[in-house]
């Protein structure tokens, strides 16, 4: 799926204190994941507490924005009439943030070209204040 085709139909997350850094960081080209200031673990989905050590000393931190496709599926079903299919839904394991996965789309290549283990890099698709982190294969 070329970038942008699904743009008109992407539901927008409601921004709050915990998720804003994740959804708006793309304005500055940054993929930001909540991190614990005490034990250095990453916390995703972002919350006000560290799930590893229960500290509330947490804040968003930029990660490299690269990763590996852990698994994926090619979606062919139009879950609503405006949806353009097929497209790839993938689970990406983020570099530098052990244990954190993002559900995302792999764009910029044919759906058949995607496989588990592929190296990918984030690219943002913007809708107003929201910057959706999508991924492209690193060739």
């Amino acid at each position: 799926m070329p970038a942008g085709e699904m743009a008109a139909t992407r539901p927008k997350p409601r921004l709050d204190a915990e998720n804003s850094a994740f959804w708006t960081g793309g304005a500055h080209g940054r993929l930001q994941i909540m991190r614990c200031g005490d034990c250095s673990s990453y916390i995703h989905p972002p919350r006000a507490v560290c799930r590893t050590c229960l500290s509330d000393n947490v804040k968003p931190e930029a990660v490299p924005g690269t990763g590996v496709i852990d698994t994926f599926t090619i979606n062919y079903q139009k879950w609503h009439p405006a949806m353009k299919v097929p497209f790839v839904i993938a689970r990406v394991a983020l570099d530098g943030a052990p244990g954190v996965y993002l559900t995302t789309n792999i764009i910029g290549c044919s759906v058949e070209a995607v496989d588990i283990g592929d190296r990918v890099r984030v690219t943002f698709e913007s809708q107003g204040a929201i910057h959706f982190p999508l991924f492209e294969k690193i060739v």
Partner: protein
Amino acid sequence: MRANQAYITGIGQSQIGMRLTRHPLLLTLDAVREALYEAGLTIGQIDGVSTYPGKAHAYLGFSPIGADELIDALGIHATWHAGGGEITSQLGAVVAAATAVHAGLTRHVICFRTVYEAAALARPKEYPPPQRDVVEGFSQWFAPFGALSAANWTAQYAMRHVKRYGLTREQLAQIALTGRNNAMLNPRALVREPLTMDQYMSARMISTPLCLFDCDRYTDASTVLIVSAGNALDEVSCKPIRIAAMAGAVERHSWDQAEWMACYATGADLWKHTDYKPSDVDTAQLYDGFSFQAITWLEALQFCEVGEGGRFIEGGKRIALNGELPINTFGGQLGGGRLHGFGFAHEAVVQLRGNGGERQIAGDPQVAVCTSGGGPLATALLLARD
């Protein structure tokens, strides 16, 4: 009988269909009446109600009736009740009821699951679909990327099996084909037409590797299981089925953060609560909202090694009605209808009582396992006829 144990006594089921016009409360009543009749109980003897996931106000088709409403509508005098989605999937409602029975809080509990998704889809003015333009909580991590259905989330686990363990579409098909073969022998099943391997292989894809026939379809129905206390069985006229072991697990609530589906922890835990072993099981009723889930349950319950589920069901003979481990003998959700978890426990009881009619398995079955969920939430029950 074991006084401190919980038993499933009466079971009931409404008509199973699509786009039914009968009110969901009345479908629930139909299932309650059948269960009471079978158990020889009256509504006045019911003192507990348990359901999953409670009334779903955001989308009534998913769960149109809650425990509060049923208690009020049927004039039940309840000393204990519960209804909610934050439990280990659908059959968690039975675990809750059995736990309350163990604790002596209640003697006869109506456990129910009513679904009305096909009717709701056909009558959007009465049953408005959920709004999806702005998302929060759990949905925000999936919906913006078009991962709107559990089909997409499950498909990604299935794809790992394809790539890691060599799971094939022909193997996945055996769950759908077995379910459909059995559904054809079940007068109440939702889909009673034959399904061939050719039809399966040429079906359109939903989300690779899952095709149309790997996914259950919206159904309107109600299923009831009455859970009774061991020391109240003298009030019951049907053969009680003992809940010999229960297990449940919750993985990361956001599916994409979980390395393993919750069925694996659940299956391993189940055998710690009983002296029975997988080889004692006469029939397995395995959640198959998506075909792949039944394969993971076979692995999780240790009928085969992790990764071997596809090869275990190769050709389908082993899991057929006359095979060594018959599964989903009512058709599963793929053939019998999306009864959402409760159908598996219902059928386990039918088989253990020898009431399966044309679909009854041979050999006087005494032990059955039934499951619900499997993704981030999972429940397994081991049932035994003493």
